[in-house]
């Protein structure tokens, strides 16, 4: 029926068709990519330095600490992110990376925002201790001010005022379960992002 040359032509055309349609498929299909968030804290000048007033981690009552907290969404879609601020001492455990469990430290406040893919949300995080008392040999933080709002701290004490820390946890909205979760799901994995910054509040800082 077909001559040899026409048969060859048909084979060439079909081969080229398959190649070009594969190119069309690859260009129109979004490629899967790694899904993650980035959480960071910068100092007063939005650099990885100057985290404390006069670079002294020994903070006194009323010393304003200026940080900038940021989150970048690389999940491939819009997300609701919640940054939870917790205050801990040396004995309270940090978040558990392996079990994806948040820190049991008391929650001071939280900040919520919807961000779209490849967007970075950065906000000023200015805080100070506004009320603390010093029973014998220890320091107890009673009130903390964050971005001009005052929050009570449920009795957090440290021996001699050493090793307090601010913990920042990243929580996200999980549409499947309809709840907020610590960290996020990437495929079958759970991943978490959190930061902690240590500070002291010794008697010398209070004078």
């Amino acid at each position: 029926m077909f001559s040899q040359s026409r048969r060859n032509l048909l084979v060439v055309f079909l081969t080229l068709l398959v190649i070009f349609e594969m190119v069309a498929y690859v260009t129109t299909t979004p490629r899967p990519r790694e899904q993650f968030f980035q959480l960071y804290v910068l100092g007063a000048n939005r650099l990885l330095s100057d985290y404390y007033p006069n670079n002294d981690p020994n903070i006194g009552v009323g010393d304003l600490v200026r940080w900038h907290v940021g989150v970048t969404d690389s999940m491939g879609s819009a997300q609701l992110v919640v940054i939870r601020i917790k205050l801990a001492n040396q004995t309270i455990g940090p978040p558990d990376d392996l079990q994806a469990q948040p820190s049991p430290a008391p929650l001071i406040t939280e900040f919520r925002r919807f961000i779209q893919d490849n967007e970075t949300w950065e906000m000023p995080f200015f805080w100070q201790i506004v009320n603390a008392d010093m029973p014998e040999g220890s320091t107890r933080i009673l009130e903390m001010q964050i971005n001009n709002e005052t929050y009570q701290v449920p009795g957090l004490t440290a021996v001699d005022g050493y090793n307090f820390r601010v913990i920042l946890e990243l929580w996200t909205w999980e549409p499947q379960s309809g709840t907020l979760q610590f960290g996020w799901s990437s495929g079958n994995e759970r991943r978490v992002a959190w930061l902690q910054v240590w500070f002291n509040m010794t008697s010398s800082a209070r004078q």
Partner: protein
Amino acid sequence: MEGDPMLRIRWFLVICVVLTILLPLTAETSSSALQPTEELQPRFSSAFALVHRAEAAGATREEVAGLVLLLNKALRLDDEATKLPTSDAQRAALLAQVDENLAALETEANRLELTASQRTFTNRVVAYVTGGIAAFLATLAYVFTAYVLRKYRIKRTFQMRIFPKVK
């Protein structure tokens, strides 16, 4: 009547109840036992799902940015409203604004989902049709090249010269 001890106790109890209700409202500092938000309100949740659907349908970055802006505006108004006492008229006004924003967002997200899915479908069809046309043109190029090569080979064959062997 004023000397009645039962009546005084009753008045004292009424004042205690009123103070218990009013004191937390007048306190300047936030409650120490801050209740974390574990769930989004259903309206936010459904609006957010619509944004995801518009994104999945192929809405552009600029289009999604408009939706996210509306979501954040509604979230900010909701945060402001929750700080006010439930009986406050301003709270009701803010919550009405939240509903208004979310309704606008839902309409826009539905419209975007439709236009984005149509655009994505058109782009896909154009890409596959272009692939077919490109394959056809490439086949024509192959045929033309084969034809030119054959002609060149025939020409070279007829240009050949035969020389006698020199001993």
